[in-house]
């Protein structure tokens, strides 16, 4: 290899090195700590014993409590993803097909990101709470005499998650719809398909990669959340990330918390791997960029 070739081969790595260093230091090194921690042992005195113990893993993997919450976490994430897809597709289609005001619509879509996710989540308390907007309005109108309890259940958790994740879904679908030549639908209708048939035959299949990318993002972010169930869920609506939070922050049981968080990481990682196998990560990058 000549020196010029060697330099050219090195160049991408030189340019990537700051980012790789940051990712390595801030992501992989802590992750290794977590892996190591998960094999330590927490004693009754509160001191952690270093070593290779499988006790945490045994507890995390066999306790029905953890398994049930993992299943309900995945169920909530799945429902959220389906709701986001159903609500997000028409919106994305409308934005992609609108002419003059596309930029304004996209800006409106981005607007929620300027407000903290926690504030946005808490705003539902002002809407659905006992003295919130809906109850106040209904009572003022005399429809009800006592406020209705609408908050702190699984439905409000899903509502909060949909509120948080819908823009991700819309953006991903929008990007894939934008990439579809509008002549294709015209060609389909000119050949005798109605607008609906041409949507089903042409546009929908061609936008599936975007739908899948949006779905993956919503599912992974939804399954990993702990703020939404904390703010909008009741005592029985904890999701898996809340267990990790509980173990590490409240009980200071780092070894168990580490094992639990690695469990969630493994489940979601498997999902990403399956997605990558069949659709590839490139589509996801498009939607994020």
């Amino acid at each position, binding site marked *: 290899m000549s020196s010029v070739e060697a330099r050219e081969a090195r160049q991408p790595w030189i340019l990537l090195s700051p980012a790789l260093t940051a990712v390595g230091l801030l992501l992989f090194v802590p992750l290794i700590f977590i892996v190591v921690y998960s094999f330590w042992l927490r004693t009754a005195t509160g001191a952690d014993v270093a070593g290779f113990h499988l006790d945490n893993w045994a507890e995390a993997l066999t306790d029905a409590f953890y398994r049930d919450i993992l299943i309900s976490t995945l169920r909530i994430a799945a429902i959220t993803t389906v709701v986001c897809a159903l609500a997000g597709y028409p919106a994305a289609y409308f934005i992609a097909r609108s002419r003059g005001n596309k930029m304004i619509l996209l800006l409106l879509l981005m607007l929620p990101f300027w407000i903290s996710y926690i504030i946005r989540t808490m705003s539902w308390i002002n809407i659905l709470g006992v003295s919130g907007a809906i109850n106040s309005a209904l009572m003022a109108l005399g429809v009800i005499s006592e406020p209705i309890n609408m908050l702190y259940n699984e439905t409000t958790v899903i509502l909060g998650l949909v509120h948080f994740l819908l823009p991700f879904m819309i953006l991903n679908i929008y990007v894939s719809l934008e990439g579809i*030549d509008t*002549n*294709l639908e*015209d*060609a*389909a*209708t*000119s*050949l*005798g*398909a*109605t*607008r609906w*048939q041409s949507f089903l*035959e*042409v546009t929908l*299949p*061609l936008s599936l990669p975007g739908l899948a990318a949006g779905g993956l993002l919503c599912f992974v972010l939804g399954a990993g959340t702990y703020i939404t169930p904390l703010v909008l869920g009741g005592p029985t609506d904890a999701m898996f990330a809340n267990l990790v939070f509980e173990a590490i922050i409240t009980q200071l049981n780092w070894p168990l918390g580490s094992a639990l968080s690695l469990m969630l990481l493994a489940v979601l990682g498997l999902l990403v791997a399956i997605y990558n196998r069949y659709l590839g990560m490139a589509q996801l990058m498009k939607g994020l960029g």
Partner: protein
Amino acid sequence: MSSVILKDIVKRFGDFTAVHKTTLEIPDGAFVTLLGPSGCGKTTNLRMIAGLLDPTEGEILIGGKRMNDTPIHKRNLGIVFQNYALFPHKTVAENVAFGLKYRKVSRDEIARRVKDALELVQLPHVGDRHPKALSGGQQQRIALARAIVINPDVLLLDEPLSALDANLREDMRVELKRIQDRIGVTTVFVTHDQSEALAMSDKIVVMSAGHVEQVGTPEEVYNAPASEFVANFLGASNIFDAPCTQASAQGATLDAPVFGPVEVAAARAPGVVSGPAKLVLRAEKLQLMPQGAVPTGMISAPATVETVDYQGQTVRYFIRLGERQMQAINMIDERPFAEGEAVLAAFRPRDCAALRGA
């Protein structure tokens, strides 16, 4: 198979008028080209015939039936788009079969008609492949097969050749015309390429800025342009003010600068009356000769070659006659004239056309 009639069609986009009041008749089985520069309204007209755009005013009739309120999927048209618009997720055979699926055609017949259509476009063996695996020219043939397999009443071609390489474009031009002749479908072809229009059309509709400038056979629009725009758009022309001194049923006499009086036949001088007029002299009809030649039956004047634009078979000269610059496109006989060479510029009066002056 059907005629297409546009009756007093107007199309406005907000304040912008894309098509001014236009009336056009495209006879059954004809190959009619809408020719003009981009933005002249030719594609807008095509899209209105297709049903992809609604006219602001006027009526569209296909086969004598008013189509304004008929949605595109019920018009039975074959459209070929500039960028092919093949469905990338379907195989070639599925693409071609697409329109037949919505026409209550049995499975066996679909297979047979897809096979026939692919044979017609000379690509019988690509049915199982995806469009992406084909070259641009092959994709265009598939797009054509998909449009004609449904036996459309009218075939609409939106600049179908402009995405192809120059050589391929000329092959496809011949191919397209052969297929159209064979199936005899009424065809509306949109292009900005004058040589495509001249080579393929039964009739050319020259458009500019939303107006129809001229409708005629290729020979008519080429030899007897109705306006300065048409004369310039179809090939290179020398156009100059030449007052008409005498006009009669036989023709008009124009007093051309440098060359003197030129008699133009009446057929090539539509509406020219005594007074201001313009003489149109095509660059190919202006012949350069060595100094001292004695052309017979031609009008000539001495000139100097300024620029030589060598193109192989032909040369395009820019020559100077006094204060005036003109273009001449000549076949190369032995050697092209050199820049700065003194020559004789000559033409036959019958090759000229005349326009009414401003």
